[in-house]
């Protein structure tokens, strides 16, 4: 399985959970903490991310940056 990870901007996350629904790996979950705007934000809660970008694609607020281990030379998966 390809190894990936995501970087989450906890201050722009609005806790809508759409990324959580979209993640095929169940890697994401809502934190108990709230950010300055009052939202519980998303965290990577499991180490099984494949870097599939699904979460990032559906994230309305462009909160998520996705990285993938593969060396292929493309910038975006979509």
């Amino acid at each position: 399985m390809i190894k990936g990870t995501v970087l989450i901007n906890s201050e722009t996350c609005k806790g809508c959970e759409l990324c959580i629904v979209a993640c095929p790996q169940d890697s994401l979950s809502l934190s108990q903490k709230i950010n300055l705007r009052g939202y519980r934000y998303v965290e990577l809660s499991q180490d099984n991310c494949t870097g599939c970008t699904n979460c990032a694609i559906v994230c309305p607020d462009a909160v998520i940056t996705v990285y993938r281990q593969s060396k292929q030379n493309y910038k975006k998966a979509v």
Partner: protein
Amino acid sequence: MPEEMLIDEMQCVYQKPGTLTDEYMHYCPGCGHAVAHKILMEVVEEMGLQEDIIGVAPVGCSVFAYNYMNIDMQEAAHGRASAVATGIKRVRPDKFVFSYQGDGDLAAIGTAETIHTINRGENILIVFINNGIYGMTGGQMAPTSLFGQKTSTSPYGRDVAHNGYPLKITELIAHLPGAYYVTRQAVHTPNTVRKFKKALNNAFEYQKLNKGTCFIEVVSNCPSGWKMTPKETLTYIEEKMLPEYPLGDIKVPTQNKN
């Protein structure tokens, strides 16, 4: 942070497009407008249009689109975005021009402008966000609200006898010869987003070729207006919206129509 260590060895495969500004978006959590903005700007970035495109924002929740899209934009009066886009395109025919409009804006107050812009075949793209409600003003009934849908101005549910039928403006305008490419997309799943992106790509390619009006409806959600959590809106879209507004191309250019 463990991620950062990893990241050094990894490649970035998805990030916020540079064509979005750093402005925090005022949209409610989970709002489809924001997804649509992002994808639109991704396409603008990938196609290299940023310096040659002018957008028109409507009056509706996306009224501030010009704060988020890092391109030249004009904010239009309610319903008149396509007339404003016409004005721009006519004097700047070598630029890409699009309007971005909600269902109240495009299909209620702006019906005449919508129909005539498309009937003239203005060489622009119209992005039509159909969330079946007036988001900005607090959840009133839109022309596209569903049968029986409860909104703040149809508190007992939309009643066809009184309020008329959900208006399928997209199917309607597809009949106009000026409409070159008409399609209905969505942004609530990774897959629909990918297709929406492709549709945007097509539309700008056609605009480059001067083909006439391209029209992309986006079936979208409005968690606040629908009084649901964002997650609940996903089911509502699948179960209620899509049966009435099925996804897919409605009018595609045929070979012989060049």
